[in-house]
């Protein structure tokens, strides 16, 4: 039995190919969407990301064990039927902690990326649009942060904000980690945005808008931004994954999130001294980090390929 809905949906596409002419030309966006829907990597990464987001929003759906409940009798116990991923140093369930840790890790990743893209995007579009000395000034300013090695810069910022030995609150340290990641990684977003703006600025529609007397704000928001936002979005997807990894690295060094916050980085940092005796305490949270980063990088890859007509 042939499904009439499917046939009907297929028809216009066929027509387009046969006639070569179409009533409504596909935009780059819908073209990319058609390309994406057929890519297995895109679908896999999308499913993985949905699972991770679900874990962050409703951790109770995945486990009924409390992440902070600890029983020293179980300390460093290996994986078993009771606790699939075993127990950590305090005797807490590693699986439950990994599920509950998703939220903090994802929050840091999302907000750090948002900060990176906002700062980098604004500075980049301003530098590209105004050019001349504004451009050189902003480019040199970005160089200052680009030249600073990420880990060293983050250590200095985190320790400046919290004196060694102090114990800041949960929200405060979360926002500090977000801040230090964003401050050190915005130059990349800025360069991408600036390059895209330089290309878009030369287009006829911008000249036309200028000729019609549009002000700089209108040109930037109505004409430049819609045409420059795609490459930055692709970078943001990949950066989101990288930032989740950065949270783990900072926590590993003992300067990022810290207990009582539960995050993958915190779990990894707790496991650091027991790797030889109980490798599972490190391996499972590291696997969560890796799979999440993998999903975002894969998504970014697929989206970039779809938006880049050259790669087809």
């Amino acid at each position, binding site marked *: 039995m042939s499904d009439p809905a499917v046939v009907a949906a297929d028809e216009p596409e066929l027509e387009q190919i046969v006639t070569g002419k179409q009533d409504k030309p596909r935009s780059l966006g819908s073209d990319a969407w058609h390309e994406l829907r057929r890519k297995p990597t895109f679908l896999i990464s999308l499913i993985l990301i949905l699972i991770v987001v679900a874990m962050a929003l409703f951790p109770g759906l995945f486990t009924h064990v409390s992440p902070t409940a600890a029983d020293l009798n179980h300390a460093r116990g290996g994986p078993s039927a009771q606790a699939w991923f075993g127990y950590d140093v305090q005797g807490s369930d590693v699986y439950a902690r990994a599920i509950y840790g998703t939220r903090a890790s994802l929050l840091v990743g999302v907000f750090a990326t948002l900060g990176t893209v906002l700062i980098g995007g604004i500075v980049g579009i301003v530098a590209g649009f105004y050019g001349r000395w504004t451009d050189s000034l902003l480019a*040199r300013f970005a160089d200052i942060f680009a030249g600073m*090695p990420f880990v060293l810069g983050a*250590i*200095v910022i985190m*320790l*400046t904000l919290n004196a060694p030995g102090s114990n800041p609150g949960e929200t405060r340290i979360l926002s500090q980690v977000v801040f230090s990641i964003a401050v050190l990684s915005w130059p990349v977003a800025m360069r991408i945005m600036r390059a895209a703006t330089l290309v878009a600025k030369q287009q006829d529609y911008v000249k036309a808008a200028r000729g019609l007397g549009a002000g700089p704000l209108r040109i930037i928001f109505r004409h430049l931004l819609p045409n420059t936002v795609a490459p930055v979005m692709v970078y943001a997807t990949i950066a989101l994954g990288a930032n989740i990894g950065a949270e*783990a690295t900072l926590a590993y060094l003992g300067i990022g999130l810290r207990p009582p916050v539960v995050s993958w980085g915190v779990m990894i940092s707790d496991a650091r001294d027991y790797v030889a005796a109980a490798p599972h305490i490190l391996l499972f949270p590291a696997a969560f980090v890796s799979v999440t980063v993998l999903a975002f990088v894969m998504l970014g890859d697929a989206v970039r390929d779809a938006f880049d007509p050259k790669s087809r």
Partner: protein
Amino acid sequence: MGRYVLRRLLQLIPVFLGTTFIIYTLVWAIPSDPFAGKCGQRPCPPEYVAKMRADFNLDDNLFVQYVKYLGKLFTGDFGQTFSGVKVGTLIADAYPITIRLAVIALVIEGVIGLVAGVLTGLRKNGFLDNLVLVATLFLISLPVFFTGYVLKVGFGISVSSTAPLGDLIVPGFVLGSLSMAYVARLTRTSIAENRRADFVRTAIAKGLPGSRVVGVHLLRNSVIPVVTFLGTDLGALMGGAIVTEGVFNIHGIGGLVFINIQQQQGVVVTGVVTLLVLVYLAMSLIVDLLYAVLDPRIRYE
């Protein structure tokens, strides 16, 4: 050419000043007394604190402090720690192993990344191409400390600070693994793009052997973005070595900064970061000058 170099060097000055100033301000702004707990159980005598503050110019205005520090720096004096050890000596002790580690990492990522990139770029969508793509995805998503621990336990390695080069290969591989994935991908895209260029077709039509077409004509034109990445990566590798050094217990620059920032030895931290920034700036200049060697079409006005 000479004018271009001069202009680039002049542009380096504000970047250098900005970076050192930010680091200097941040390190000395750490909100606790650097001399607390320096005299054992009892509080430090006020004379001691006064003398230390005077020695480290802590009572001056921040800008005055910074200018005094810079003045010393230009005479090659990195200053000394609170206990009187010369920062220059500390850096000289820790730097060689970090440089060796970073260079090994750079060589490993350059060689493996380039070979993988060329092989996959020439045969897009083949089995090898997909294999390398998946492998780079995994390398990118594994945190460095994770690869480090796995390889360390797997190979049972410990490294001393006078280690011969051979011992540094595994740590170097760990350090360079992330960049290796980027190099492979950059090369692949670049080769795949240039493969259809006119000059490649001409070279093939002239009857040049395949190895020469790929090795000289194609590679030389495709390698520019890769060289940019590798050049600026050397500084990042030195600064980023802190995690790898921690995992393999190597006493390099990373460990030095980490200990000293916790003890608020601002002079040491500023000194090391200044050096790293200098390396980054110098490398990006060298890379820009290399462009003309690789591609004679590029001219410097």
